[in-house]
């Protein structure tokens, strides 16, 4: 039985609730739905599960984009109600007829709803009976007949795509779910394809390493000269190893590394991309599709405005956008989900006059991207540090991630930045597995002149971290940066150890370090990390990933898609961006520019772009297509750009 069905405006006013199903909903499922699903651009999903103490609800929704209404149905998860989509579609149709923006009470809808519900329940019963009769028939046949039934009953296309996601393995009952649902990737379940991909990736990596080794050996005789890449002054000293013994006990006085202002504090010169150029490109991309319609009709439509945007109209523009997102290194399933979400928010909307479909879609997508990348909570770390200081506790940050993403390097960068703001930092070397990890941190600590807590190798990282925090509390230090060993997300024992470390020490910030080069694997990494941290933690409310540190940003030009994939899949904001290997190469993510560079066309088009996350290069193209290449110095302040 349905628990509740609500109709509310996008502005937040509840227009109608079913008074017959007068059960008060436990917890606040609607608010949670809005906050964690609809505003997170997951409105393309089929349903949402809400758990409150004592209840488990499933919510389904549909939009009427033209009138700005949302229809939500809530029911108990254990009941797999089949008629909900159908009912929502019918309710939407009926309500739009009687909707009036000025009216806020719709008591006459009660009767209509009662009728609709009876109809929907009856229909569901019929289908279920039909399915049970067809049980011996194969699954595909079941789908076909399901589709046939649907078409015969004139259901809308959306009802199809919102087939119930609550996985019910009974094929006959789920015959209603159309072929698309069955074919699409199964979220959450183990995917054999992914495993094969991972294996292939691993194979590739070892190949390249094997190739490199023989080359280096042949050149041993000739002494290598340092190659000069740009006009920077020749670095005389290449060997930074300190003249200390192996266990580093000697106390060498080293002048603290002061390389100037960290880039976190430097201003970025803002560029002004012209919207018209972007539109031109968008048009070129979708020109192939619009040619089918004919020039005149499309012109006419763009001037007069179309009655209602249908899914078929949106599809070409969305496909083009999805491809563009994927060329920018956004993971495939994220791009897919985003496009679905944008489609859900634009369907049924009236196209204004003098606007093209592609520009509407682009605007909606840009808005969605900005919304996703805007942090949900404050990322003001200094403020948090001050708050902890008042409570006389050290602020503990744990760096987690897979192997080789740059945890230790970026830990040092963060320490440098904090130090510049008069914060007492301490490092804790909890990477007790990798050879040289402790020495690495020790070197950084010496150069930055900050204390380091280490216990050598082969110790339990959780215990080391605990003692480090105790030491920091004793000495009155403000921040403890905990370095952990890199681990693959599928490695169960290592993930368990990490979860134990986090549970035992309850850090203030769990920072996931991910590299910007990662492609589709970002989705897998983050979701598995979050999942394992949640599952394997012994506590009832486990700590999940609180923030993301994006590294190696200088290696990608404008393919900033990894940032988007990571933020979308985890909901955690990007707190830092690492863009180089020296201490000053740490920046903040500029949301608007990341969003617009996601949507900007690729490099072969006629526009000028400045890469804000890479202070080394910018590329400019002259108007008639001649490539003009320029490599600027490492000074974002002097980095200007011209058209």
């Amino acid at each position, binding site marked *: 039985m349905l628990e509740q069905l609500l109709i509310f*405006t996008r502005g937040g006013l*509840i*227009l109608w609730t079913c008074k017959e199903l007068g059960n008060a909903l436990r917890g606040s499922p609607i608010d949670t739905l809005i906050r964690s699903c609809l505003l997170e651009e997951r409105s393309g999903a089929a349903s949402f599960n809400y758990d409150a103490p004592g209840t488990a609800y499933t919510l389904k929704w549909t939009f009427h984009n033209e009138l700005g209404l949302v229809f939500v149905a809530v029911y108990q998860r254990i009941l797999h109600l089949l008629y909900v989509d159908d009912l929502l579609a019918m309710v939407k149709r009926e309500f739009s007829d009687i909707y009036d923006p000025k009216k806020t009470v719709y008591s006459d809808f009660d009767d209509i709803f009662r009728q609709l519900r009876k109809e929907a329940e009856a229909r569901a019963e019929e289908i279920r009976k039909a399915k049970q009769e067809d049980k011996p028939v194969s699954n595909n046949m079941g789908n076909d007949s399901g589709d046939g039934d649907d078409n015969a009953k004139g259901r809308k296309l959306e009802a199809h795509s919102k087939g119930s996601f609550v996985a019910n393995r009974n094929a006959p009952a789920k015959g209603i779910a159309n072929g698309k649902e069955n074919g699409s990737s199964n979220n959450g379940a183990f995917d054999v394809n992914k495993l094969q991909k991972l294996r292939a990736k691993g194979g590739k990596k070892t190949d390249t390493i094997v190739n490199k080794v023989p080359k280096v050996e042949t050149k041993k005789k000739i002494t290598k000269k340092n190659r000069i890449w740009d006009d920077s002054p020749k670095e005389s000293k290449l060997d930074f190893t300190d003249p200390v013994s192996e266990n580093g006990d000697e106390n060498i006085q080293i002048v603290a590394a002061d390389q100037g202002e960290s880039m976190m504090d430097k201003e970025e010169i803002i560029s002004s991309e012209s919207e018209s150029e972007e539109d031109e490109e968008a048009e070129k991309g979708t020109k192939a599709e619009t040619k089918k319609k004919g020039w005149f009709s499309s012109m006419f439509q763009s001037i007069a405005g179309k009655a209602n945007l249908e899914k078929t109209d949106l599809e070409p523009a969305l496909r083009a956008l999805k491809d563009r997102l994927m060329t920018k290194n956004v993971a495939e399933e994220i791009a897919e989900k985003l496009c679905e979400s944008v489609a859900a928010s634009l369907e049924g909307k009236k196209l204004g006059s003098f606007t093209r479909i592609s520009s509407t879609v682009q605007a909606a997508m840009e808005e969605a991207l900005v919304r996703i990348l*805007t942090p949900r909570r404050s990322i003001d770390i200094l403020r948090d540090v001050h708050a902890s200081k008042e409570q006389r506790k050290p602020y503990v940050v744990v760096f987690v991630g897979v192997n080789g993403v740059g945890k230790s390097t970026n830990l040092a960068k963060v320490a440098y930045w904090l130090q510049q703001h008069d914060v007492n930092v301490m490092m804790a070397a909890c990477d007790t597995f990798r050879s040289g990890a402790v020495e690495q941190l020790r070197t950084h600590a010496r150069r930055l002149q900050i204390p380091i807590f280490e216990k050598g190798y082969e110790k339990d990282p959780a215990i080391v971290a605990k003692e480090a925090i105790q030491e920091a509390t004793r000495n009155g230090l403000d921040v403890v940066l905990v370095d952990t060993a890199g681990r693959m997300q599928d490695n169960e024992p290592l993930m368990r150890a990490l979860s134990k470390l986090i549970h035992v020490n309850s850090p203030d910030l769990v920072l996931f370090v991910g590299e910007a080069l990662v492609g589709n694997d970002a989705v897998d990494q983050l979701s598995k990390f979050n999942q394992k941290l949640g599952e394997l933690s012994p506590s009832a409310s486990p700590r999940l990933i609180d923030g993301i540190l994006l590294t190696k940003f200088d290696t990608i030009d404008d393919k900033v898609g990894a940032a988007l994939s990571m933020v979308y899949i985890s909901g955690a904001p990007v707190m830092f961006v690492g863009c180089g290997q020296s201490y000053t190469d740490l920046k903040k993510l500029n949301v608007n520019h990341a969003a617009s560079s996601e949507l900007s066309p690729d490099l072969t088009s006629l526009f000028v772009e400045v890469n804000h996350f890479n202070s080394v290069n910018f590329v400019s193209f002259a108007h008639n297509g001649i490539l003009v290449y320029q490599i600027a110095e490492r000074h974002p302040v002097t980095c200007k750009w011209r058209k």
Partner: protein
Amino acid sequence: MDANKAEQLKAELQQWFNQAELLIRRIPPNQLYAAVGIVLLTVFLFVLVRVFKRTISNTVVLTGLSGSGKTILFYQLRDGSSHQGTVTSMEPNESIFVLHSETSKKGKIKPVHVVDVPGHSRLRSKLDEFLPQAAGVVFVVDALEFLPNSRAASEYLYDILTKASVVKKKIPLLILCNKVDKVTAHTKEFIRKQLEKEIDKLRASRTALSAADITNEFTLGVPGETFAFSQCRNKVTVAEASGLTGDISQLEQFIREHVKP
């Protein structure tokens, strides 16, 4: 061929020009000057109206954290009742209306344009669309659940108080403590003091980042002294209200003060 055509065009243009000159010469000079004068006058008046129109705005912006009660207040102002309740807003609510409590008054009352901007952190950018045209900003604070959200509220308030549009135009700000009908709600004095303390702390940490923070264009208060709302260039006042019961008299007073009837 082209040369001939060009010459022909030139000749025609010349003819028209001469004809026009003759026409103009025929009009007596006074009339001509009068006509030109009228055209200039209308243009001048038009420009004046445009300039004046900008300064007199009737927009009031309701903002605050998510869950503080802005949408309920919006509907109380408009219709005098909160209807069947609200959920988290996904889009701004705006409309131009005469305040509900004043519909019974006689005489011509100027309608007010009220905008309720969603408080959810992901939708913060919507505020910038409406802030430039605002005659007054109402920052709604949940007096019941104030302490857990005090940091987020003060950060949001700090952002608003340091925006260029607010500081330059000296837009008056009302801090409205909502949900005071509940017994455990905090008093407005307490809330004011807490906000001042939090903003003081924020000032210290934000100025440290100020070079990189493009959004905060102005600094608040006097350096060296603890922050107080009286130090702001725009007027900041505190008031109480209760959205559910409809006790919004102080809010209406504020609106009437700054949107002249």
